[in-house]
């Protein structure tokens, strides 16, 4: 059980390249399940490895339970890590793989055996204890890697994309097992992934990273509802939020956003700090858009259907709006009868629209004071 605090944590591998992780400020509470989420190469693994003690810290401080551990070697930090490759010792049996970390801690033999047996029980590995890793399936290896961490009963668990080498079905079941494990152990866990479904389902909070920096930290649904900038808005959600370049204009009823021949009225408060004529980005989630059913409908936007993807429960419709480069994605009901080439209307709920400043940060979130640290 432990609080992990990152203070301006920075890692620079070499001077020629930009920092792999820069000025990362994050506090992971005791017993929290924190997910580091971001595209490949954004510095998640680097950050995790600095916490583990496998990578030196260029600047900033890392504390565990208030004690600065920058210079404490990995072996003395009492942290366990599950690697993406599992990193099982190929020359040892499942039992020895799990017991290896305990042996070095001079624990009595009986207790080591007890712990290994308990962990094997939880993970359903009891019948495989004498096998070597090469004789295990991918899912079983993954469990051994989990078991090796559990037996240690460490202060902090670190996971680096532990599910990315599993097939889709196994990934879903293992995901819920990891969630169950967290509920059972109530331990502090930091989990790295590029998969937003894992992040949304597992995280007590998620920390979204972009190019070495933290873009936003918060509870999954808060981040989803109030993305702090266009990066988070475009990254989270499947399909992601539609981002449309627009211009602020004064209208008789208040303010509206124009893009091409289209105009959308948005709550005045969201554009209040901006002058008329400012460039902004309008953010519309696909699920907040709907195809207008008939021509008499007072649809807000009009465009031409480019692609139709029926997924069963829903149908994704991409609509080309005049003078806008990227088609807008609309989440339509599964039964929708829309065909490519149709000219359709799109209804939208202006109160669900997001407005982003030209520098990318959200006017909506700023307005709601919803940025969390």
């Amino acid at each position, binding site marked *: 059980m432990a609080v992990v605090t990152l203070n301006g944590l920075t890692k620079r591998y070499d001077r020629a390249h930009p920092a792999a992780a820069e000025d990362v400020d994050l506090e992971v509470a005791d017993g929290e399940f924190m997910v580091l989420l971001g595209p490949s190469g954004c510095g998640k693994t680097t950050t995790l490895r600095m916490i583990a003690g496998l990578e030196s810290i260029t600047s900033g401080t890392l504390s565990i339970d208030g004690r600065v551990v920058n210079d404490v070697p990995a*072996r003395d930090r009492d*942290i366990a890590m599950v*690697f993406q490759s599992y*990193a099982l*010792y*190929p*020359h040892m049996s499942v039992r020895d793989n799990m017991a290896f970390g305990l042996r070095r801690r001079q624990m009595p033999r009986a207790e080591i055996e007890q712990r290994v047996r308990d962990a094997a029980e939880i993970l359903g590995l009891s019948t495989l204890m004498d096998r070597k890793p090469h004789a295990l399936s991918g899912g079983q290896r993954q469990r051994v890697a989990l078991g090796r961490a559990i037996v240690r009963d460490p202060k902090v668990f670190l996971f680096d994309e532990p599910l990315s080498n599993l097939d889709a079905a196994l990934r879903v079941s293992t995901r819920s097992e990891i969630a169950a494990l967290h509920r059972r152990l109530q331990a502090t866990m930091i989990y790295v992934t590029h998969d937003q479904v894992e992040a949304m389902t597992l995280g007590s909070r998620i920390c979204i990273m972009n190019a070495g920096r933290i873009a936003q930290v918060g509870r999954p649904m808060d981040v989803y509802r109030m993305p702090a900038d266009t990066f988070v808005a475009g990254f989270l959600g499947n399909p992601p939020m539609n981002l449309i370049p627009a211009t602020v204009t004064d209208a008789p009823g208040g303010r509206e956003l124009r893009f091409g021949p289209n105009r959308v009225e948005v709550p005045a408060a969201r554009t209040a700090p901006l002058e008329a004529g400012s460039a902004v980005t309008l953010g519309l989630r696909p699920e907040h858009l709907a195809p207008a059913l008939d021509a008499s409908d007072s649809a807000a936007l009009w465009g031409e259907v480019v692609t139709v993807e029926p997924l069963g429960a829903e149908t994704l419709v991409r609509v080309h709006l005049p003078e806008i480069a990227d088609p807008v994605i609309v989440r339509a009901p599964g039964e929708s009868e829309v065909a490519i080439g149709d000219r359709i209307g799109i209804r939208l709920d202006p109160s669900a629209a997001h407005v982003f400043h030209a520098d990318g940060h959200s006017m909506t979130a700023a307005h709601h004071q919803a940025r969390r640290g």
Partner: protein
Amino acid sequence: MRVATQSIVMAILCAYTMFAAGPFVWAAMLSLRTTSEIHLDHFALPDPMHWDKYPDAWFNSNYSIYFMNSLQVVVGAVILVTLIGAMAAHCLARYRFRLNRIIYFVLFSTIIFPPQVTIISLFQILVGYGLYNSKLGLMLVYVAIQLPLTVYILESFFARIPADLFDAARMDGYSDWAIFWRVALPVAMPAVTTTVILNFILLWNEFLFAVVLITDEANRTLPLGIQRFIGDTQEDIGMIATGLMIAIIPVIVVYAFFSEKLIQGMTAGAVK
């Protein structure tokens, strides 16, 4: 079609086996015949079989001494070269430090020098350190000449061990020293075994350094012992053959014992 291909392959393999094993079988036959029998007919089968030539060589020609000397020098050298080589290879493969590649390259480039180039200066050095004509001196020379190849083979294998494995061991609480012994070395066992066999066979048969650096009868190794049957005026072919067979036996034992591992090591493309 397939039968035809297979029989061609078999024919080639048989021809090669005869070519490779023929001289060995011939020497084995000679080892059981006396020199006068051999002079009558070079290729006759041993009849009667003179098994007594083996104890004769062992007890009356100092073979027991040569054999023990060879065993001491070669086993000692192989142990040392394996340990030093594995540690060096592990460091060069795993740690990033300045001059890493340069050290590796300089070490490896010594392979290109033929032994004749270094032997005079080696002789001088050993005399200077009082190691000339001693088993320890020969052993150290053997370690030095086999080290580059050993490091070369092991380094490429160590470099293929995934770094995550070492990181996992660090997280499990082990020091770098313990990680070498408990993770790196066991995982690299197939490659280590390969170098053990290779070094053992090469050094067991080594003649050039031994003949230059050892003159004392009590310190001679087996290859020098065999040479003793070649006199100034006559050669005792029969005893040379017997001596050869005695010398080959340990090589066969080592090879048989480790051969499965050797094949593993040579085919171990991927560390799982």
